[in-house]
């Protein structure tokens, strides 16, 4: 792409620049705080950064994003919220080299998590990175290794580990009130229809599309991908299973104490969205519009299902986990909190309300506070990389099974798929030059 050279020059010119313009008047910030940088300065990254700013303990020193416009907007918003004037970088490597932040928040699309995280840890930063850890299993393993070697704190954005109704729902579940649980069903349903291809375009001015794609395949730019749509493109993420699936599968690990499933089978496709399209002129997304994945654990079976069509009110809940026990069914959900449906006719429905930060319905403030405390105390955070690695691997293994079209047996000791070289190949993927796949 002719874009490469020009965008490199632009990046260099922009590196380290502080956005000028009429400053908005604010009270001065107090001195020594944790020097915090954000890599991936879009909607979610800024949600995390807002918690850093709200904590009063962080100074936003730098922002990175491949989209210069997003950077300008983010720098302006940071200034409005905190009075800080962060330096801006289109290339995260330059940010890390020049700023040496105490904390790096990483909220890029999934395909960037591994390289961003490993580089940030090696630059000496504590890392708060979004889930899932990696885009393929071996990226996640390399991240885990780098985290162990760094001695830094790594918090992964699994805020459902600390969300109040998840904690109270989990306490209810672990109290034995649900009885013996033999099966778990996880799900995230929503509406959708046939997908028509959208025209490819030249990337908007200021967006370094080559760097956005980074180690992943360079698809033609399409506004359906950026901003906000990349989760449905398997080059950059893993669809619903790789998004909602991580949260709910993590809840299963949290509840059960089991560390991994023995066997995984996943089926799904795009019967409603239609065949994936990708040509010079136009493209569609390519993530499955529905998937069903079965995870066979030692003591129970767990089923994941998502559907992005036929949105209706035929079911009580659209998102969450059903724990099926001998005493009843516990649903842990999102905005609907948790609800216990007793098996006994004389039993009483019990309920715990959700306590979320709106408008986006998360609990990042609690997770950020835990991150700060973990840094202070040099302890493992509540959503540390060890457990987040195990949770992230589950949807990624689901995707491997879906791709090869057969069940796979997971050997957790070696983190290999037993007796299936083809499936094992899919634990990694080729990187685009000059990027190098990280090794564990």
């Amino acid at each position, binding site marked *: 792409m002719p874009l490469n050279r020009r965008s490199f020059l632009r990046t260099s010119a922009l590196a380290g620049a502080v956005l000028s313009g009429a400053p908005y008047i604010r009270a001065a910030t107090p001195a020594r705080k944790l020097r915090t940088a954000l890599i991936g300065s879009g909607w979610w990254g800024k949600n995390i950064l807002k918690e850093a700013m709200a904590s009063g303990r962080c100074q936003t020193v730098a922002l990175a994003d491949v989209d210069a*416009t997003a950077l300008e907007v983010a720098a302006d918003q940071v200034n409005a919220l905190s009075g800080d004037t962060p330096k801006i970088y289109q290339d995260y490597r330059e940010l890390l080299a020049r700023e040496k932040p105490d904390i790096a928040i990483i909220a890029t699309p999934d395909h960037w998590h591994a390289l961003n995280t490993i580089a940030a840890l090696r630059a000496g930063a504590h890392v708060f990175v979004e889930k899932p850890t990696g885009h393929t299993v071996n990226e996640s393993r390399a991240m885990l290794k780098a985290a162990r070697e760094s001695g830094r704190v790594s918090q992964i954005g699994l805020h459902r580990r600390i969300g109040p109704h998840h904690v109270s729902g989990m306490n209810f579940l672990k109290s034995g009130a649900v009885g013996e649980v033999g099966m778990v069903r996880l799900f995230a349903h929503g509406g959708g229809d046939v997908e028509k291809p959208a025209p490819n375009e030249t990337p908007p001015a200021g967006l370094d599309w080559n760097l956005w794609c980074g180690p992943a395949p360079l698809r033609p730019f399409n506004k359906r991908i950026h901003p906000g749509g990349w989760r449905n493109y398997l080059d950059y993420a893993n669809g619903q299973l790789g998004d909602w699936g991580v949260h709910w599968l993590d809840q299963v690990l949290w509840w059960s104490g089991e560390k991994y499933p023995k066997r995984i089978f996943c089926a799904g496709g795009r019967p409603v969205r239609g065949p994936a399209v990708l040509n010079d002129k136009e493209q569609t997304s390519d993530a499955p519009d529905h998937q069903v994945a079965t995870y066979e654990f030692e003591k129970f079976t767990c089923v994941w299902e998502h559907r992005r069509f036929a949105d209706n009110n035929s079911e009580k809940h659209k998102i969450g986990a059903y724990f099926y026990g001998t005493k009843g069914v516990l649903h842990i959900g999102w905005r609907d909190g948790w609800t216990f449906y007793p098996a006994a006719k004389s039993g009483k429905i019990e309920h715990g309300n959700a306590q979320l930060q709106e408008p986006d319905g998360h609990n990042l403030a609690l997770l950020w506070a835990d991150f700060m405390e973990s840094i202070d105390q040099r302890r493992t955070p509540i959503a540390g990389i060890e457990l987040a690695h195990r949770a992230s691997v589950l949807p990624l293994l689901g995707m491997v099974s879906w791709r090869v079209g057969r069940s796979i047996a997971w050997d957790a000791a070696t983190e290999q798929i037993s007796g299936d070289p083809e499936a094992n190949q899919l634990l990694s993927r080729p990187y685009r030059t000059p990027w190098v796949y990280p090794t564990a």
Partner: protein
Amino acid sequence: MLLRKSFLAAVIRHLTGPALAWLFTSVQAADWPQWRGPQRNGISEEKDWLDQWPAAGPKIAWTAKVGLGPSSFVIGGGRAFTLGHADGKDTVFCFEAATGKSLWKHSYAAELGDKFFEGGTTGTPTLAGERLYVLSRWGDAFCFEAASGKIVWNINVQKQTGIRVPDWGFTGAPLVLGRRLILNIGESGVALDPATGAVLWQSADKNAGYSTPLPVARAGRTLVLMGSSQSYLAVNPEDGKEAWRVRWVTEYGVNAADPIVSGDRLFISSGYGKGAGLFRLGTSEPEELWKIRTLRTQLNAAILIDGHLYGVDGDTTSLGALKCLDLASGTEKWAHKDFRTGAVSGADGRLIALSGTGTLLIAPASPAQFKPTASAKILDGKCWTAPVLANGLIYCRTTSGDVAVIDVRKK
């Protein structure tokens, strides 16, 4: 009553200042033929209407369902028009303005476009004489006979010009300005021949903003102002040449609220935490006078009454507040909280405010306080559309397409 188009074209080329304002009022006084009303300032010409109603609530003249989208109403010639989306199609609705009787409709295939919201039509038709102009989010432009719904012409401007569709689709209403139909498409607009739909000029293939082109006559010439993806800018309507721009970078390129011009002052505002700015218009680039963060109009522009701005601060994801600010200084006068992302229009020194959750409020437009004389919950669901007062009726809708028309005529 209505000027013939050729005469209109001849007149408009020679008009400036107050004379141009006269032109926009030359349709029936109480009509609301275009986005933000006859003067494009969000203020109705209506006088002598009911600003109070009984405890039981106002009289509902009629209701309707028009499908998904926050498209507003235009009213003229006894007809009311709006747009909505359902089942893979947008529909243009023509109602009898007083009764809601369906006069005609026209549907065309369109995507839902539900990026970060429920989707549906976001633009508003424009009534100019006996013609109704419609621009869809995806570039389908129509000219209808307003009376019959017969298509005079129809082109897809996106395909015709090759200009990209911005993230939420084309949203600004068409502006009829003499021999030009100006659309907020591309970096700084596209002009079509209103008679045929032929492209007269087009701007660069960059993301458009979401405001409606606003004609402003000053210093002997008329310029058209619009929000682009990274600026508010002004172009010469004759040839599309840019006259000036104010760099104004808003998240996702959402420069949606129309600019407000008062004398030589230019007020612009956008959401996502961006804020507002006041500029002095001169002969070249506008000069910044102040910037504030206390009025962030994400969707609908504020209205200006007697030197005070009344508008909604906050995004659709926030609790929002209806606010009053002094234009000269930017000082906040009052804030009516939890208004959500509703919208406000004005008439005869009063505010007509529809909260984001469907409560209609009437209050004197006063910097001293917000003290409604009437209030009623008239709709359930999200309301992102400014209420429209025309001929004694206030047209309100939800984004899901429930329409409630409130009768405020004095008998």
